[in-house]
């Protein structure tokens, strides 16, 4: 199952640079990034090619970072692509804690990443419904 890194960050100039500097220096490639802001602090979420190593780099440099399991679903990059996923999640009463998406190849495929309470169970449900899920390797070697 793929892992995302969640990082606690104070909302101040230079904070994002520090994180990206640390990762770039160690050859970590960032696949996707989101920032949630809450006034004086925020949470940075990253999908990278080597989450374990990246997390160690960040915590080793005094940042608070944790690995979280996420579900990554392949979506066709066309109108309505996301709707089917939404409908399926609703039918199974699955609540999304947080989500983000990114396009892989324009006009062809995109990835929808969701954070849920019980990712393993959700993976099984989605697989049974015929969705194509991305495993750890698939996601990082895109």
């Amino acid at each position, binding site marked *: 199952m793929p892992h995302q890194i*969640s990082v*606690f*960050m*104070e909302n101040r100039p230079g904070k994002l640079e520090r994180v990206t500097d640390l990762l770039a220096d160690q050859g970590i490639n960032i696949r996707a990034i989101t920032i949630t802001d809450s006034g004086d*602090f925020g949470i940075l979420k990253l999908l990278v090619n080597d989450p374990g190593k990246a997390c160690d780099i960040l915590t080793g440099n005094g*940042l608070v970072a944790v690995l979280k399991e996420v579900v990554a679903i392949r979506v066709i990059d066309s109108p309505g692509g996301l709707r089917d996923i939404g409908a399926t999640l609703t039918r199974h009463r699955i609540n999304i804690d947080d989500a983000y998406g990114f396009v892989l190849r324009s006009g062809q495929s995109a990835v929808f990443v969701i954070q849920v309470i019980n990712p393993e169970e959700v993976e099984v449900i989605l697989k049974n419904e015929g969705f194509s899920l991305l495993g750890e390797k698939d996601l990082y070697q895109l």
Partner: protein
Amino acid sequence: MKILDEKIECISSEGMRSLQLERLQRLVEYLTKNSQFYQGKLEETGVAAGDIRELSDLTRLPFTVKADLRDNYPFGMFAVPMREIAEIHASSGTTGNPTVVAYTKKDIELWSMVMARAISIAGGTPDDIVQNAYGYGLFTGGLGVHYGALELGASVVPISSGGTKRQLKLMHDFGSTIITCTPSYALFMAEEAREMGYDPRKSPLKVGILGAEPWSDNLRREIEAAWDMTALDIYGLSEIIGPGVAQECPYKNGLHIFSDVFLPEIIDPVTGRVAEEGESGELIITTLTKEAMPLLRYRTGDIVTISHGTCECGRTLPRISKILGRTDDMLIIRGINVFPSQIESVLLQVEGARPHYQLVVDRIRGLDTLEVQVEVGEELFSDEIKQLQGLKEKIRKEIESVLALVVDVKLVEPKTIARSMGKAKRVIDRRSA
């Protein structure tokens, strides 16, 4: 439980007051005759021995502060010639001259007596084996407990501090029933024991007499659970005698202060006004019966409350609270006295772990503001913003209810709070800048 010195420990309040007055009068006479330092000080204040007619005249006497001891280094505070001195101790003196304290043979007897009382109040008897893990040497902790254990008739193991493996081995092999050390060392030893594969709950210890540093009720619960023993607080300071100034009994209603020999007052550290029963203030102590280095109204710098009711254990000795703070780090914000330790105890309750925090005091448009910065560690971190916001709100509400003051809470990254010598700088006051 048997009370060692029932005549004193359960004395009526009138009995105590007349004993204190008699001793205070004798003390002022003694100092007028024997102490060069106090001769000068009393003359300055314009108080003579005959002026002490009732106990409330105490407030006419001058204060003594730590700087007096440093300024009169090494022997300027002594009220007896060196041939009368039996023992001399000194603080480490990391910030200038060390603080020197001395005892006559009779002072050592007094020390033994109050420490024997302390161990007995904690539940100790001649049947106990006291493993004394306070440092022996110039630090008064080790020898003070030692003398008290001897006086009580208990068996004492003078192991001193450190050497955790040996502590644990002897504790187990000898069957030590009482441990005396700092609370942090008690907790550290329990962790070491578990790492060595030895369950500290199976140790022979019944009671820990823990002191020499301030500690919270949370830490007490942790220590008690770790060792399966009763953990009790002891209070003392070398200027007064060393350990043995006040001791908590198993009812944990505060520390019984030996007011027959150490006369306590609680005052507002700024105005000098005497605090009401239960109101917090600085603890001031007058040593009533010491010979070598008696002190008049010594400002301990420790903030406590005092209560005078009879304790469930039957003793009438007044009880002081655990140390709530130090006058040296007291902040006055919008007229309210704030101690960093109050905030620390709130944070301990919210997170359950010793937190790193910093207080930033500022004055914005004429109004004092207090910002509490709390470092977010691994154990605190949730990657859901609403949980972090909830945590922040919870901390804010708890602090506001304890301080009766509006505060701002800010969550900050770990290790962003500057540390010097491994110790965090707790307060930044920008008001004077």
